[in-house]
């Protein structure tokens, strides 16, 4: 995992920051990627359903949870969008919520395969 510095501009994950967070512990990196892969789809789905139901309280809670998970993995842009969703839910701005959710969905589209690649590289 020596070329990661060149990949941050095209990728969702800031791998340089992430490796600092795990203190360059590749086993820990694999472990938290595993946790993320398990939890992220469930939380994202809960957020999508809450937006569809216009359940602002739950949108706020799930977008906060997503923001935390994404921040921990240094998925910076997606974390920022999740933070924006949280603010919009708190402000009850439903009209912009749907659009912002779409932005988030687009941002995280390639995230899981990207994380898989890091995980494989860390194991090798």
């Amino acid at each position, binding site marked *: 995992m020596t070329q990661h510095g060149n990949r941050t501009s095209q990728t969702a994950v800031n791998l340089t920051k992430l490796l*600092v967070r795990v203190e360059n512990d590749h086993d820990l990196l694999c472990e938290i990627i595993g946790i993320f892969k398990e939890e992220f789809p469930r939380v994202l789905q809960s957020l999508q359903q809450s937006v569809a139901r216009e359940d602002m309280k739950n949108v706020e809670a799930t977008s906060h949870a997503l923001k935390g998970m994404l921040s921990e993995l240094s998925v910076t842009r997606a974390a920022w969008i999740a933070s924006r969703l949280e603010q919009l839910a708190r402000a009850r701005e439903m009209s912009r919520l749907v659009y912002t959710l779409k932005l988030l969905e687009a941002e995280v589209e390639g995230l899981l395969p990207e994380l898989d690649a890091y995980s494989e590289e860390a194991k090798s």
Partner: protein
Amino acid sequence: MKVLIADDDTISRRLLEKTLTREGYDVTAVDNGRSALRQLSLPDAPRLALIDWMMPELDGPGVCMGVRKQHDRPYTHIVLVTSRRSKQDIVAGLESGADDYLTKPWDPAELTARLRVGQRILQLEDRLVEARETMRFKATHDHLTSLFNRGVIVDLLARELSRTRRESGCTVVMLGDLDHFKNVNDAYGHIVGDEVLREVARRILGSIRSYDFVGRYGGEEFLIVLNNCDSTQAIVRAEEVRNRIANDPVKTIRGPLSVTMSLGVLASQDWDLRLVEEILGEADSALYQAKAYGRNCVKLAAPTTSADRISS
């Protein structure tokens, strides 16, 4: 050192756990506020805590407030960990009882540095508590025998007397004085005299119950206060004290020395509504009788009537 992590985010919790374990901390991790408060309320609970702000059941500020309500515990240093960054949030977090604030995503080096600050504060607090306890002990105990000093034992007697009156119980007061103690000091010196006083104190403590009190009343005088004890038992208990002192010579640097004690004893049930000073005066009179009777004996104070007291 033990540290508690409370965070409902599994990744965050795992990262904190790993970083702190690597730093040598003994980590307990929970995923909600209520469990955090329960952990921090246990005996021997962690005294360092990293608490996430938003958690199910009870949030971080709620945990801080719960911990701060527990006044009779050693201090817990709490760091709130959160992605909230506004000044209002920081103020609200600190006002709830947090000591420090760390924003997510945290940096491992900053996290461990802040915990070291917390440890230094806790160590300082421990030293202050220890110093306060030492001062408290010195202010309340006799420096030679480590028994209660005169002021404290008399206060304890007053407290016990009012309690037993309230509960219609009985307190026994024993005033003991070592016989011919001046001769010990004169013949063997004050170092030996001090050895004798320390050993006598130890023997008295060994012959009373854990909930009775004993103090050094004067030079070689000791005041013993027995709870829930009547005049019949009083004599038996006083004889136990006397025998324990008289039966074995005290080992000193100048060889074994035989010492004896005379005791004046009084049971409060026979002396209702008397002031502490009067009670002590009566115990002293009984002690005087024991001395006059030949020493190394116990005398029970006989109650005087109101008429006696008026005429005297």
